[in-house]
């Protein structure tokens, strides 16, 4: 064994997995996990803990894995995270825990994400359950949204003895874990549902089909239904479009729509009613994780797929692993390319996408080099489907129906340390930050739970 290198993780062969929705990464077995864990040098001043947004005691759980005490490892993670099987799969570890790992200076960082995933999967397969609060404190908290922020916040509060109800707008809990991230990256029945069940086992109630701001408002929850505090984790909202000609044509989708049809409504399975217009040749515009998910979904539905992104590979906001997987599977990357018009036939169907080539100029406000159009570089990519993956703007439903809840100029809820401008109301996740990652939403959920606990303890 080379201690400088990660124990490799088994994956489905790219040629095979490009045609199915089964999970790409197969994960470690017990031996592989113990071997990988033994590479950890158990630093006194563990930088990985600081690198983790929810501050999991990483060296401690890795140590237990090394010793073969997987159940103990699960409870150590459980002190900080309610969704380890999810985080082990979708966190951008390379910029967080693994990015600061001492082992990574001379060799490869410890595979913390894969170990976390292993521990969570082991716990689920062996019926290890999270530890519930031993008494209730008599206070009620409502959590809006059963996504990563809401589930985390609810889990933390339940462990402190609060009576927590999550209100979810869709017909299934999970938020982006259910409607957004595809099956091949995050299996629903095997991973997401059991993680949600674990949160329920802590005593959390989940009521689906309730749209806060419409079915009932925040004020009504506090006044009529007796909730002492609220956490808003309602997630991202309306998809952004480019504002170029042809965007209303049949065959232009937001990534949200394409992924929701496929993941939440299971359009990829024959016996589900919701249709999806898979496309034969698909252009995905954007370079984030959502763009990769949409591209790899279209590929599995049988399309030739092009990612069109206006900057270069170095600026792709997606996790390195997703880009790598997408390439392996055959997604074509048209980088430094930007659409200027979607071509439409007389029936209103997409026939192609006019694009221009770009080059990188001076750094802009985000610190990244600004892409500039190369004059005379216009070409056309023939396609029948265009998926816009340009991010989202916040959902207006809650802010517009709640007196005293302020938003910033982008429509995001204003929250400092999780506390909004309305007494007793906390918020976090995409509703506050705009589109971000699962783990950052979880961090915000934790912060919200801490804030609510302090608020209600002082009352």
């Amino acid at each position, binding site marked *: 064994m080379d201690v400088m290198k990660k124990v490799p993780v088994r994956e489905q062969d790219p040629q095979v997995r490009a045609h199915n929705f089964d999970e790409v990464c197969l994960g470690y077995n017990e031996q592989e996990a113990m071997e990988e864990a033994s590479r950890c040098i158990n630093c006194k001043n563990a930088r990985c803990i600081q690198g983790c947004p929810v501050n999991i005691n990483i060296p401690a759980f890795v140590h237990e894995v090394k010793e073969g005490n997987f159940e103990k490892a699960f409870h150590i993670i459980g002190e900080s995270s309610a969704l380890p099987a999810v985080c082990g799969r979708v966190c951008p570890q390379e910029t967080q825990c693994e990015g600061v790992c001492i082992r990574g200076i001379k060799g490869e960082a410890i595979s913390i994400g894969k170990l976390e995933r292993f521990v969570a999967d082991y716990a689920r397969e062996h019926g290890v359950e999270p530890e519930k609060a031993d008494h209730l404190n008599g206070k009620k908290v409502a959590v809006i949204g059963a996504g990563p922020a809401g589930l985390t916040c609810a889990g933390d509060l339940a462990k402190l003895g609060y009576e927590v109800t999550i209100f979810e707008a869709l017909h299934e809990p999970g938020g982006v874990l259910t409607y957004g991230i595809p099956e091949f990256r995050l299996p629903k029945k095997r991973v997401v549902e059991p993680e949600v069940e674990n949160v329920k086992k802590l005593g959390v109630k989940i009521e689906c089909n*309730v749209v806060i701001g419409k079915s009932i408002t925040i004020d009504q929850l506090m006044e009529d239904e007796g909730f002492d505090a609220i956490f808003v984790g309602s997630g991202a909202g309306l998809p952004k479009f480019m504002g170029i000609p042809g965007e209303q044509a049949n065959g232009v989708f937001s990534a949200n729509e394409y992924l929701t049809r496929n993941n939440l409504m299971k359009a990829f399975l024959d016996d589900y009613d919701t249709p999806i217009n898979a496309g034969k040749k698909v252009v995905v515009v954007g370079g984030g994780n959502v763009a990769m998910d949409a591209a790899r979904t279209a590929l599995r539905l049988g399309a030739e797929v092009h990612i069109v992104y206006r900057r270069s590979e170095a600026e792709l906001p997606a996790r390195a692993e997703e880009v790598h997987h997408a390439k392996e599977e055959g997604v074509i990357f048209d980088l430094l390319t930007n659409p200027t018009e979607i071509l439409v036939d007389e029936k209103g169907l997409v026939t192609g996408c006019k694009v221009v080539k770009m080059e990188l100029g001076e750094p802009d406000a985000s610190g990244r080099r600004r892409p500039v159009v190369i004059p005379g570089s216009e070409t056309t990519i023939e396609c029948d489907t265009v998926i816009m993956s340009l991010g989202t703007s916040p959902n207006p439903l809650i802010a517009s129906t709640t007196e005293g809840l302020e938003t910033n100029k982008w429509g995001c809820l204003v929250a400092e340390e999780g506390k909004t401008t309305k007494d007793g109301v906390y918020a976090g996740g995409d509703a506050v930050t705009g589109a971000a990652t699962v783990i950052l939403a979880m961090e915000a959920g934790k912060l919200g739970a801490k804030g609510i606990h302090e608020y209600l303890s002082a009352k």
Partner: protein
Amino acid sequence: MYPIRRAEWLAENIFLMDVEAPRIAKYCEPGQFIIAKMDEKAERIPLTICNYDREKGLITIVVQVVGASTLRMSRLQAGDAFMDFVGPLGRPSDFVTEPFEEVKNRKYLFVAGGLGTAPVYPQVKWLHEHGIEADVIIGARNKDLVIMEEEFQAVAGNLYVTTDDGSYGRSGMVTKCLQDLYDEGKRWDVCVCIGPMIMMKFVCKLTKELGIPTIVSMNPIMVDGTGMCGACRLVVDGKVKFACVDGPEFDGHLVDFDQAMKRQTIYKTFEGQAMLKAKEGDTHHGGCGQCGGDK
């Protein structure tokens, strides 16, 4: 689960259901919609609320069989239940939130076409309960397709029924009826028009000429209905709007109907296939030109 308390046919292919959904019935208003999902594998189907009973916690929906999902839904009976039923979604009709002093001095005309008759009902009823008698035109292809006439008689000011083939009431389409009434000297401050998109388009064309501000209720394809997927986008006054959160009601004189009608057709092939499958069941062996069964 959301139990069905009443299920009956109003006309060929049009059925009504009262569904128990207390949370929705408590706060819903005219103009809003719900999304219904029959069972695990069903689609999410947006349906405009056609009546509500706050005390009994009931929501009335009226549905036309247009595809496989609505055909399956039509087979549900009282005592069955929807797995998911969510709402109220969208914004209430303007008159619910506008200053009542302004609303009560207006003369309202409702133009309802076919299935669109049902969602007009709670609006006319609301106005009636607030002392405002609105004129209503109900249009249908023929006598058998005229729905809810009795209910309307109880809440409308003047009620005009017109059929395309003249088999009942006045003869001709709603636009003819509207023009005739106008020529007879009737005047209104606001027109609210709900029906097939093509009908709304032509009513709006006419009311624009007649100078009557017109509100339409758009019913585009939706998935989540809560402002997330963007499937329901349409162009209003040159800007992209989302029917689920910005609507479903819009200024009819500003809606790009041609674009909206094109967007309605996107899943037509899928719907046709699914419909054949649902109707013919195991006996389906091709003929739809899509499934390959006839090769």
